């Protein structure tokens, strides 16, 4: 069944979203601490952070399910901070789908339209179009319990978008699905959201999900915004140690600025060895450098001269074969850990065999050095 079969089309009335100084205090704990954020119309922004970072509370305050202690929520330029939840015109997906178990799939999708006083005759084609959009047209008369988890969340998606919401809120919508299904649903939700141009906020603790789906990622920690940026900005230019370690894996190297040369700062690493860095945030003497493990390559200690850029000696602790890559865990001479991901290209024998106890020269291009705040 396709959307052609019906006259109705699913459209959207997306609006931009702004929150300013949004704060929530539960008893003595500050769950959300003065968040200010603008989300453009049609944009999908992911709130990403460890559990307890305040991302879900933020989402629930935007929805109107939790009343903010302070601050404002603006949808389409209108202040809705004191508007009750049912008047905010929001679509929302829940982690447990929250389909009404006693209503059929079609009745579930029709619910929001009914609440808006849409006539029965007008509801039917809209519901059919929404179900066709999520490819569940033939499931209209089933009860939710007869559907798989992925199908249930697609019904929930149809139910959320059929009301032409100003905003779509996604509260860990794929958390209960297994990995393969989750990945295909990420793409499907993303496509529908783009096609309809709906403004969306996604809450997730899954960094891959955030990177896959979002136009911009908001990293939250301890109720505050840690960093806001495109997935690429967040990954390649993390502002703090927390962001660098939360998104992907990262090596952190302490060092001291010992001078300048043509290409940038020269830094003596506390674990021995040297690094060059063209990026610099001023004249700080002590620096913390983030290096992604995939940038690190390994060589025998005697060959160190052949490897330019930044590097230092390390001792191999453990070698783990992980399919796409081999992970080599090392310790530096000052005891700090170092991790390298060596790609296993097809047909290529997994590099030289490094085994525990080997002394190696770990090096990486100086462009991979990125200074982070130690937070």
């Amino acid at each position, binding site marked *: 069944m396709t959307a052609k079969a019906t006259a109705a089309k699913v459209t959207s009335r997306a609006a931009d979203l702004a929150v300013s100084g949004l704060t929530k205090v539960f008893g003595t704990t500050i769950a959300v601490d003065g968040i200010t954020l603008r989300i453009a119309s049609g944009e999908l922004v992911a709130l990403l952070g460890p559990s307890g970072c305040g991302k879900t509370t933020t989402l629930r305050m935007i929805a109107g399910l939790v009343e903010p202690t302070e601050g404002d929520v603006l949808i389409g330029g209108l202040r809705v901070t004191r508007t009750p939840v049912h008047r905010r015109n929001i679509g*929302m997906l829940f982690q447990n789908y*929250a*389909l*009404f*178990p*006693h209503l059929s799939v079609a009745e579930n999708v029709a*619910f929001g339209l009914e*609440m808006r006083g849409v006539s029965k005759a007008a509801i039917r084609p809209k519901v059919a179009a929404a179900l066709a959009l999520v490819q569940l047209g033939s499931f209209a008369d089933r009860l939710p*319990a*007869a559907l798989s988890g992925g199908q249930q969340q697609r019904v929930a998606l149809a139910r959320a978008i059929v009301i032409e919401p100003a905003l779509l809120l996604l509260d860990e919508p794929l958390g209960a699905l297994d990995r393969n299904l989750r990945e295909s649903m990420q793409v499907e939700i993303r496509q529908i959201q783009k096609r309809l141009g709906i403004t969306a906020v996604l809450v997730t603790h899954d960094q891959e999900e955030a990177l896959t789906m979002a136009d911009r990622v908001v990293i939250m920690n301890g109720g505050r915004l840690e960093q806001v940026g495109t997935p690429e900005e967040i990954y390649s230019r993390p502002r703090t140690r927390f962001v660098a370690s939360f998104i992907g894996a990262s090596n952190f190297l302490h060092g001291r600025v010992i001078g300048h040369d043509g290409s940038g700062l020269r830094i003596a690493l506390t674990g021995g060895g040297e690094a060059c860095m063209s990026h610099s945030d001023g004249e700080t003497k002590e620096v913390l450098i983030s290096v992604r493990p995939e940038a690190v390559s390994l060589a025998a200690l005697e060959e160190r001269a052949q490897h330019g850029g930044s590097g230092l000696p390390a001792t191999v602790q453990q070698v783990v074969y992980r399919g796409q890559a081999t992970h080599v865990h090392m310790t530096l001479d000052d005891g700090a850990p170092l991790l390298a991901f060596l790609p296993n290209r097809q047909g290529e024998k997994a590099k030289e065999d490094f085994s525990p106890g080997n002394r190696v020269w770990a090096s990486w291009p100086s462009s991979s050095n990125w200074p982070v705040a130690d937070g």
Partner: protein
Amino acid sequence: MTASALPTTDMPTRFAPPRLLVGVAMLLPALGFLLAFLVLPSVILLSYSVLSQPQSGDIGLPFTASSYQRLISSPAYRHVAMTTLRVALFTSLFTSLLAYPLAMAIAYGRPLFSRITMSLVVLPLVVSVVVRTYGWQLVLGNSGTGVLNWLLHVLGAGTAPVQVMFTEWAIVIASVHVFLPLMVLPLAASLARIEPSLNEAARVLGAPAWRAFVRITLPLSVPGLIAGLTIVFSLTAASYVTPQMVGGSRGLMLGVLLEQQINTSFDWPMGAAIAAVMVGIALGATAGVEWLVGRRAAARLRRSGAR
């Protein structure tokens, strides 16, 4: 390597009696008790209803339906049966109306508030029904000294004392009080099993709180409602103490009539026939509630996995 190459030494086994036998053996005492003290007396009593009792007072053959004929043909007996049904109906109705807010407070309230409400609901159960009904006699007393009439007088509403005591309404009021916990508990259990996110989803989709309740919470609590209605209706229809103490002659119910037939008139076959009718009402209530409230909703809920 094949399986047979594995070492195959068995663990030593001990004699174990078949599980079914153990289960039956453990059930026997309770089954025997029920058989001796419930099933057997019930069968004997019900058989009295179709036996005859000549002037001598000895109950025996021949079989006769005369007790049932008298019960059906007498307007007085019919009136009592109708009173019983009416009281049971209104009691279950008012009980469920009062029970919903209480059950929701227990199911959705903060832990401390929920526990306090639960205690307040259950606490009256520890006081004897006789004591509680005496309390209602004091409250509902028809003279100016009844608490209700005194209160109405103090508040300056009307001059003549209201006559609630010794009417059906007195029984309904006292029964609602007695049976309220039995409605609240299954309802609260049913409500607590409803995912909170369902109500939130309804609210986000544009339902004001009351519509979310009517469309989502209410239908999903039907299993608890059915349980409560069945219990309260059956127990009210079968009750004896409350109608005896606050019903008087205008609020005569089957339970009281039965007691009169056996203890005052010594008419065992008639009493047995009344007992049979009361059993019929209790069974009918179970089937009727299921049919009226639950048939469609319950079937759907069962398929949808709600309990």
